[in-house]
């Protein structure tokens, strides 16, 4: 059997999908997080329930939504609610197992910036769309999985603006700030998967994707990262790639973005 080749976007989505366990409640943000959740639902986690901040709860989506407000998020849904129910009752109520997020910048402790680039928040070099639900999902999910393109400028020591709390400045700083949810479990990138040490919350490379090396990761990371335990990510299976390409995103909206 021929083994299918994958793109960096594809392996990122596949690795992210594998972070979802069956039966979990998944809060998915716009973009690749949706692909990851839809792929997981069609592979190893058929009973995971996906939740969207705009109001769709536990759908059985047939067509890829372009954003979390898309009508496509509602197909077969158990509930059509709104921000009120999803943020208050489901997210802050402590019912989300894993939140899936992206961000323009991500720093050493998994804090995200999706607000503004540059040293002066009021007069930014680049103004970004803003938090949306990102700060909320980061604060209130039992754990989060972050999906991001691995480039040095996107992985600084410290984000320009902390939109969404990761492990803050490491150690128990997140807990001390009174944040109820559990923090980032994994950062899935185009090069590998970063995880965090239990007590110190220091990042380490858990795996590097086929074709990448720990050296690539270090070169594209703006903070120090321990790569000593990294193993190679197991390649996407043909099944994963077929489903991703043919079922999840047949138009290539995100995969050929």
């Amino acid at each position: 059997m021929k083994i299918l080749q994958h793109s960096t976007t594809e392996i990122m989505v596949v690795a992210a999908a594998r972070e979802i366990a069956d039966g979990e409640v998944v809060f998915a943000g716009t973009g690749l997080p949706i692909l990851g959740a839809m792929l997981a639902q069609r592979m190893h986690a058929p009973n995971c329930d996906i939740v969207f901040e705009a109001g769709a709860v536990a759908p059985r989506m047939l067509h890829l939504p372009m954003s979390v407000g898309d009508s496509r998020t509602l197909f077969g849904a158990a509930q059509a609610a709104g921000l009120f129910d999803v943020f208050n009752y489901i997210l802050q109520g402590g019912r989300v197992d894993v939140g899936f997020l992206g961000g323009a910048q991500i720093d050493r402790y998994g804090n995200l910036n999706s607000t503004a680039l540059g040293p002066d928040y009021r007069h930014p070099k680049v103004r970004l769309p803003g938090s949306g639900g990102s700060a909320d999902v980061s604060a209130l999910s039992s754990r989060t999985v972050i999906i991001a393109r691995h480039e040095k400028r996107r992985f600084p020591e410290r984000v320009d603006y902390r939109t969404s709390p990761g492990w803050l400045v490491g150690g128990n700083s997140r807990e001390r700030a009174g944040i109820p949810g559990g923090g980032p479990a994994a950062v899935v990138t185009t090069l590998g998967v970063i995880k965090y040490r239990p007590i110190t919350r220091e990042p380490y490379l858990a795996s590097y994707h086929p074709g990448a090396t720990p050296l690539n990761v270090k070169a594209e990371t703006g903070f120090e990262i321990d790569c000593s335990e990294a193993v190679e990510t197991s390649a996407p299976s043909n099944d994963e790639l077929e489903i991703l390409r043919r079922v999840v995103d047949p138009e290539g909206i995100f995969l050929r973005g």
Partner: protein
Amino acid sequence: MQNKLLELTAAAQQINSGASLAIGGFTSQRHPTALLRELIRQKRKDFVVYAHSAGSELDLLIGAGCVRRVEAAYLADGVLAPIAPNWRRFIESGELEFEDYSNAAMMARFTAGAMGLPFFPTLSMLGTDMLEQDGLSPESRERDPEAAVCKAVLMDCPFSKRKVVLVPAITTDFCLLHVQKASPAGLVRIEGQEFLDVQMALASRRVIVTCEELVDDEELRREPERNRIPSFAVHGVVHVPFGAHPHGVHNYYDYDPDHLILYNNSAETEDGLVRYLDRFVYGVEDQASYLNAVGGRVQLEALKAHSGFGYNPKLRRRVA
């Protein structure tokens, strides 16, 4: 029973420059864009707009110079416009006052207004720069009677000793919604996701609703479990088919990817924006001319939702 029916132009005439607005919908869905274009044509200025996740409807209002200040969580149209272009340009050039909150925090603020409470508690925004850095300076807050005295307050819960963030209530002069169905008496039926429309409406002094279909009060009273805004809180009803275009309306039509990308590309430059406004706002006198300008019957037919889906499953969304 009061008849609250209005024409689009008359509805827009009620909305004064300087007013505070809440605009219903979410990114690319169910915004009252026909009404907003009419406000631009009527040359309204100095709006203060409160939003959660807005799309190009608010971006257009900013670009047309109608907005003094935005307090919001997000402005984008998904992958079709990953950063709302005027939002970006106006902030980068210092032409727009803004304040950042998260979606849950904006939800909490509108909810407080809807409930008659001066604030709402949330566990979100702890540990973020949204609690550390203000968009509005203390002076501009003092100058502006619309602005809350401060952005947020951190408190220790007296029952549990947990940290809780209090965010100030929003009460707007007007809430503008676009919904699937409404009756002349002001009953409103939202299909699909509610977004934050119910709380936005109830946090407002006057609510103006544009709708795809005008229906009998009796029809909506048949399923009272699905009516979520009391008719006594609704002040104007306007019948505007395709009133959310280029955004989508669940069960009626999809968002228009071609037009959203055309908007995004146009609005990335000032010249492009001027041309867009001339062509699709100032250059069309009403909703009918607008619908012709964006492609008329053929294009609208291609967007229509299919039964059982709520959207058009055949819509080509990957624009070349």
